[in-house]
C-alpha cells in the first residue's frame, strides 16, 4: 500500500495509461510504434493486477505472478512481432500500416 494513495487513484492512473495506449494503437501508422502502444496497454494491465493484489488480497501472490507471466509473454510477443516486422521490411521495405492492407474487402 502506498500511504495516502487510494486504490481509486492508482486505478485511474492505469485507466488513463491504458487508453493512451489505445489511442496510440489507433493513430500510429508505424508498426513499431503500434507495438509500443501495445506495451503501454499491457503495462497498464499489469499494474492493475498488482495493485488489486496488493490492496485487496495482500496475503496472496497471484497478482504478482500474473504480472510476471504477462511481462514474460509480452517480451516473447515483442520479440516475435519485431521479427515479423523486420521480415516484412525485408519483403516490402516498409513497416507502414498503409502498406499492409491485404485484409481489405
Amino acid at each position, binding site marked *: 500500500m502506498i500511504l495516502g494513495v487510494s486504490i481509486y487513484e492508482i486505478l485511474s492512473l492505469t485507466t488513463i495509461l491504458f487508453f493512451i495506449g*489505445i489511442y496510440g*494503437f*489507433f*493513430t*500510429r501508422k508505424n508498426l513499431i510504434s*503500434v507495438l509500443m502502444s501495445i506495451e503501454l496497454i499491457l503495462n497498464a494491465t499489469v499494474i492493475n493486477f498488482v495493485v488489486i493484489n496488493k490492496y485487496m488480497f495482500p496475503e496472496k501472490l497471484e497478482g504478482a505472478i500474473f504480472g510476471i507471466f504477462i511481462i514474460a509473454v509480452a517480451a516473447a510477443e515483442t520479440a516475435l512481432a519485431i521479427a515479423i516486422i523486420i521480415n516484412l521490411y525485408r519483403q516490402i521495405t516498409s513497416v507502414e*500500416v*498503409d502498406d*499492409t*492492407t*491485404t*485484409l*481489405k*474487402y
Partner: protein
Amino acid sequence: MNFSYTILIPLIPFVVFLILGLNHKRIKPAVSGYIGVFGLMASAFLSYFTAYKYFFTVPKIDGIYQQITHKTVWMNFTDTLHIDMGVLIDPISIMMLIVVTTISLLVHIYSRGYMKGDPGYTKFFAFLGLFTFSMLGLVLATNLFQIYIFWELVGVSSFLLIGYYYTKPSAIIAAKKAFIVTRFADLFFLIGIITIGFYTGTFDFETLNDPTGEVITNWASTSFMGLSVLTWALILIFIGGAGKSAMFPLHIWLPDAMEGPTPVSALIHAATMVVAGVYLVARLFPMYYFIEDGFALNIVAYVGGFSSLFAAIIAITQKDIKRVLAFSTMSQIGYMMMALGVSGYDGHEGVGYMASMFHLFTHSMFKALLFLGAGSVIHAVHSNMMGDMGNLKKYMPITNITFLIAAFAIAGVPPFAGFWSKDEILVAAFEYSKPLYAVGLIVAGLTAFYMFRLYFSIFHGKKTAYKHTPHEAPASMTFPLLFLAVMSVVAGFIPFSNFVTANKEPFEAHLNYPLAAIAVATGLIGIILAYVFYKNPTEYPAKCRKAFGSFYKWAYAKFYMDELYFFVTRKIIFNCVSQPIAWFDKNVIDAFMEGIGSGTLKASEKTKKMQSGYFQDYAMAFVGGVVVISIVLIYIFKN
C-alpha cells in the same frame, strides 16, 4: 328412333381433315381433292337421308316435330352441371345440316378447279374439312357449351382459311381481325352461357327451351339492374351471335375476311358460318321469346334491322365485288335477325321465325352462287375491282346466266327463291312494327339496286380491254354454279312452313299479295335504276355521287367504323393501356424488385469501405463497440 349415326356427318369431314392434314406432303393434289369431295358427298348423302327419315318417317306427336337427342357426358363441372357432347336432331338442325353439307360439297367441287395449281392445295382441302366438321358440330350441338366449343372451332377454321394466303400482309391482318373481333364477341357469349348455366343449372337446349319448363316460367325469379338475369344472359349470347354474324357494330371483320380464297368466302362468309348467329338465336328462340316478354328479342330485331340497312347503304358504294357481296351478306343476315326478332311463337304468329330460317336457306343458296360466280369472274380477270371488269357476258356465258339468276333471287323477283322468303319476312315485320317493315322494304330496294349495279358493271357496261382474254371456268367450277342456280330457282317452292316453325308445329303459309306486290315493285324499281345507271357507261353515277356528297364519302368509307375500332384498339387499348402497363411493369414493379437487389448491393458497396484492411480500424471499431456496449449495459444495470 335412332339417329346416332348422324354423328358421322361431322366426323367424316373431320377424318378427311386428319388424313389430309397429317399427310399433306405425301398426298398428291389430285387425290386430295377427291378425298375431300367424296368425304363431303358421304356427309351430304347422310344428311339428306336424315332429313328424309326425320320429316317423313318419324311420327309427329300432337302434330309437333319431335326433338331427338343422343348425347354423352364430356366433362363434369359440378354434380349437376356438365358439358355433354352429342347430336340434336330437330327441324332447324336438319335444315342447317342440309345447307352446310350441300354448300360445302359444292365448294369442294368448285375448289378443285379454282385452287388448281396452288401450292397448298391439299392443305386447303384439309382446312375445308376442318371447317365443315366444326360447322356441323355446331349445328348438331345439344347444349350451349357444345355450341360454344364448335363456335370457337369454326372461328379458328375461319381464321386459317382467311389467312390462307399467309404471305400476304393484308390477309394476315384480315384473319387476325376476324378472329379477334369474333373472339371479343365470344367473350360475351361465354359469360352469357355461364350465367345461364349458373342460374338454370343446365346447358341443355331441351331443358332450356321447354316453354312450360322451369327455366322459362321462372325467369322473373332473378333480377339484375331492372331486368331478369336470364334476359341479360340472352343479350350477351346475342352479342356472341352478332359477332359471328357480323351484325352492327361487330361487322367490321366481314369485309376484310374477303381476303381469303373465294370458295372460302362463299362457304364460310356467305352461306354457313355467318348465319351461325341467326341459328343460335333460332336455337334459343323459346327463351328469347318468353323470357321478359321478348325483351332480348326486340334488341335482336332492331339490331338486325339497323345492320341490314347500314350494310345495304355501304354496299352501294363499294368497288370491290367481294366487298359488295360481303356487305350484302351482312345486310341479308340482318334481315334474318330482324325476322327472328319480329316473330311470334305459336302457329302463324311464328311466321317470322319460319321466314328467317327460310331466308337463311335460300340465301345460302343464292349467296353461295353469287360468291362462286364472283370467284369465277375473279379467276378469269385476276382482279377484284369492278373497274377492271365489264362486258364479261361475251366471254363467260354460264357465269353470266347463273349470276343473273342469283341476282334476281336476292332482289326478290318472283319466282326466284329470294322472293318467297323475303316476302314472308316482310309480312312478319309488317305485323310487328311499321318502321321495321319500312326498313325492310328500303333494304329490299337497295339490295336490288346494288346487286344489279354489280351485275351490270361486271357483265355489261364498258368494253374493257383484257390482258388475257377471259374464258369460261372449267366444268368443276361451272357445275356448282349451275346446281346452285337451279336451287335458287326451286328452293322457294319448298313448303318451308311444313317443316321449320317456331313451335315445331307445321302450318300453312300463304302469300300476302298486296305486300308481295309492294316488295316486288320496290325490287323492280331498284333493278330498273341500276339498269339505267350501269347498263351502259353513263353520267348518272357520278352525278348521284356528287348529289350525296359527304354522305357518299362516309358510306364509301364504311362510315369509318374501321377507323373507329382502329382508334379504340390501337390508340386507346394499345397506347393508353398496354403501353403504360409495360412501362409500369418495367419501371415500377420490376424496378422495385430490382431496387431491393441493387439497394442491397449499394449498401454493401458503402459498408465494405469499413472493411478497410487497416487493423487499427477494426480495433477501433472493436474498442468503440466495447465502450458503447459497456455504457449501454451500465445504463441498464445501474439500478
